[in-house]
């Protein structure tokens, strides 16, 4: 009952601060913004034309750089794009289309001078030698596992035409692996970003945008808002009335500390559940690892709040608490990043003279002793990526059709292989960081800070 009373009191204090409503408003805006993003699967033709645009730009720049080719115009196009199978999903269907390379001088073909004609023919020959049908086929394998490319005659002397036919869909096996176009405000405003797979878009929004900026913002506001909880409780004239109540000082401080943590927890719940729902409803991808962020962010906040609590007991000043929290935050981020960059990255390849150096060993020890703020960030990212790369199948096989079951199994194997390779990549990058060691080291630090705070509060005269 006393715990509830103190939590209710913390809630009242929170609701009394205007900044809280600003934070709620901003959180709602972020949730609504993320929830308003729609993900439209692009057609295969759109995907190829998107790549063509990029290539056109790059080749034109190359041509413009040379004086003898400055007058040439170059572009890649597709023509007569046809879907030749019944699959409704664009990534599973087969296609036939013409891939057209146009090389021109920007003049009417009939008015070309003999020099122009010679330059054009020369460039076409060079292009055909450099990019053969076999080469194009290899290029298209990035998108199509089975594709046939053959050159066909062209009526226009400025154009080289290739017929492209696919036979086993695209390399994407599920919706999340296929390219999507994100649009804000329920499809109203396109987001000016390159086409990425749904996996990558969700990872970018969830892990990079929300996980980095969102979490930092939430932690910043929560630190400011909760920093005054304990100093206010310890203020002269307030603390006397609490200390005469039949509640142990340590209990009082811990309950108040929990009040601050609950603020962060509920705040993160609102944001992360909102984002999880928004992303899930719009993309169909229910990434439960996003919900893990609620606990990780709250735990990370506990590190700063434990420092803030100790400083509050020592100084009774909210401003000093905020500064101490931010300083801790900065130190932990800095230590985390530098440890990863200088110590952990490529550790197996480093010579013993480096890994055995006293500075190397000391810095490693400092990292091991301090709470692992950044390690937890990376571990969470790893979990999100792991889940995003988990093999999922968009279509179930028809069990009566052995061919369909075989195809399903083949796809499954392929996905598992991709998943394994992604995991290996993640392990290579963050393999040294583990949940157990990160949680134990961080918990020890929190316990130490809280223990010191409780001891000081219990023995101090007020």
């Amino acid at each position, binding site marked *: *009952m*006393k715990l*509830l*009373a*103190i939590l*209710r*009191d913390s809630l*009242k*204090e929170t*609701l*009394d601060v205007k900044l809280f409503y600003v934070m709620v408003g901003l959180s709602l805006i972020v949730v609504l913004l993320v929830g308003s993003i729609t993900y439209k699967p692009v057609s295969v033709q759109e995907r190829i034309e998107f790549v063509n645009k990029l290539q056109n730009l790059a080749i034109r720049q190359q041509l413009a750089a040379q004086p003898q080719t400055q007058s040439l115009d170059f572009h890649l196009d597709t023509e007569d794009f046809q879907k030749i199978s019944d699959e409704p999903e664009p990534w599973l269907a087969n296609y036939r289309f013409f891939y057209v390379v146009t090389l021109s001088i920007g003049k009417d073909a009939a008015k070309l001078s003999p020099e122009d004609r010679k330059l054009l023919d020369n460039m076409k020959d060079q292009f055909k030698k450099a990019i053969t049908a076999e080469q194009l086929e290899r290029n298209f394998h990035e998108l199509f596992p089975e594709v046939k490319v053959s050159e066909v005659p062209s009526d226009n002397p400025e154009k080289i035409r290739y017929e492209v036919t696919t036979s086993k869909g695209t390399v994407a096996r599920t919706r999340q692996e296929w390219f999507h176009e994100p649009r804000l405000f329920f499809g109203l405003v396109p987001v000016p970003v390159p086409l990425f797979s749904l996996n990558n878009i969700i990872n970018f929004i969830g892990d990079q945008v929300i996980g980095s900026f969102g979490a930092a913002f939430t932690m910043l506001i929560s630190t400011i808002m909760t920093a005054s909880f304990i100093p*206010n409780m310890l*203020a*002269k*004239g*307030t603390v*006397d*009335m*609490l*200390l*005469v*109540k*039949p*509640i*142990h000082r340590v209990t009082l401080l811990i309950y108040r500390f929990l009040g601050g943590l609950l603020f962060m927890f509920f705040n993160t719940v609102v944001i992360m559940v909102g984002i999880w729902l928004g992303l899930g409803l719009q993309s169909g991808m229910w990434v439960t690892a996003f919900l893990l962020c609620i606990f990780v962010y709250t735990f990370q906040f506990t590190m700063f709040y434990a420092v803030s609590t100790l400083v509050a007991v020592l100084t009774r000043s909210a401003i000093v608490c905020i500064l101490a929290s931010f300083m801790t935050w900065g130190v932990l981020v800095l230590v985390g990043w530098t440890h990863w960059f200088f110590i952990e990255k490529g550790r197996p390849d480093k010579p013993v003279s480096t890994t055995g150096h006293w500075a190397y060993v000391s810095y490693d020890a400092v990292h091991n002793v301090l709470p692992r703020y950044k390690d937890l960030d990376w571990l969470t990212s790893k979990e999100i990526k792991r889940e995003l790369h988990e093999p999922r199948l968009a279509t179930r096989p028809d069990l009566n059709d052995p061919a369909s079951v075989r195809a399903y199994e083949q796809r499954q194997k392929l996905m598992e292989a991709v998943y394994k390779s992604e995991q290996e990549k993640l392990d290579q990058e963050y393999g040294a960081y583990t949940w157990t060691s990160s949680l134990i080291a961080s918990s020890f630090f929190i316990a130490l800070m809280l223990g010191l705070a409780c001891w000081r509060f219990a023995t101090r*005269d*007020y």
Partner: protein
Amino acid sequence: MPVILTGNLVKQYGKIEALKGVSITVDKGEIYGLLGQNGAGKTTLIKILLGITKATHGEARLLEEPVGTTPVRKRVGYLPEDHRFPDYHTGSSLLDFYGSLLGMKRADRKRRIPEMLEMVGILGRKDYKIRTYSKGMKQRLGLAQAMMHDPEVIFLDEPTDGVDPVGRREIREIMQRLRSEGKTLFLNSHLLSEVELICDRVGILQKGQMIREGDVETLTQQHGLFVIGLAPGQKFPRDDVVEHGYSVDEVGEFWEVSLHACQSIDPVVDLLRARGLNLRHLVEKRQSLEDLFVQTVEEAEPGVDRIARKARPASKKRNPE
């Protein structure tokens, strides 16, 4: 057994000795007033008794148990001097919060909150935020929270500070009511007239030492000083009375007659009657608590300059009560 008991209580803050062996005893049902100048150690003494501050040496017991224990704190109420209530609370929600910390059941809190607020006269403002309260209202709320759980002992540090005269009278009545209910009150106030009116016993603390203690009646009595008043138009035979060996001072319309050792006031009364004078006023003069306090404090520190006090008219010049 006394409700409050301290024995040779010492409190040191580094080199500063805030309490130098203070021993007091307060019995059940008493209103005890603790007097002293600023920095005399009054608040330190209260805080030690409440377990907020720990004594360096000595014994302190409350309700027959060592101070600061959880069972004792359940039976004690406290209104600190410079209290600062969390202003995001309303009067009602603050009492509910404190009631919860005191371990009161929800039903009890629901019943007691309006009772207490009505007793201190702020029931009508129970749902207003404390930040809208005047100083006097906050003081009343402080009194309400100190009485909320029906404690056996209540410590009140300047309970009438910032309260208007009507409010002071109401608070006095509440204290008297609490005494009639058998509660013990430990009062710390600079309003000595208030203390004189309400307290059974007082102690004067000076620089951490208890320099005087006793019941108000006894402490304020002045042996051998009488105030005499005659009928209008009649002249007091001053020279004749002085001839009989008395000292006489004129104070307004009255005469103060000081008796020396073994003297009685009866010869003076006989003299006045023999002269055919009509006696209208004859009382043994009592000292006010304020006078007693000032006198005691000055006696404790002879030779200390107190410009402000010396500029003030001497107590003899005051009108007798």
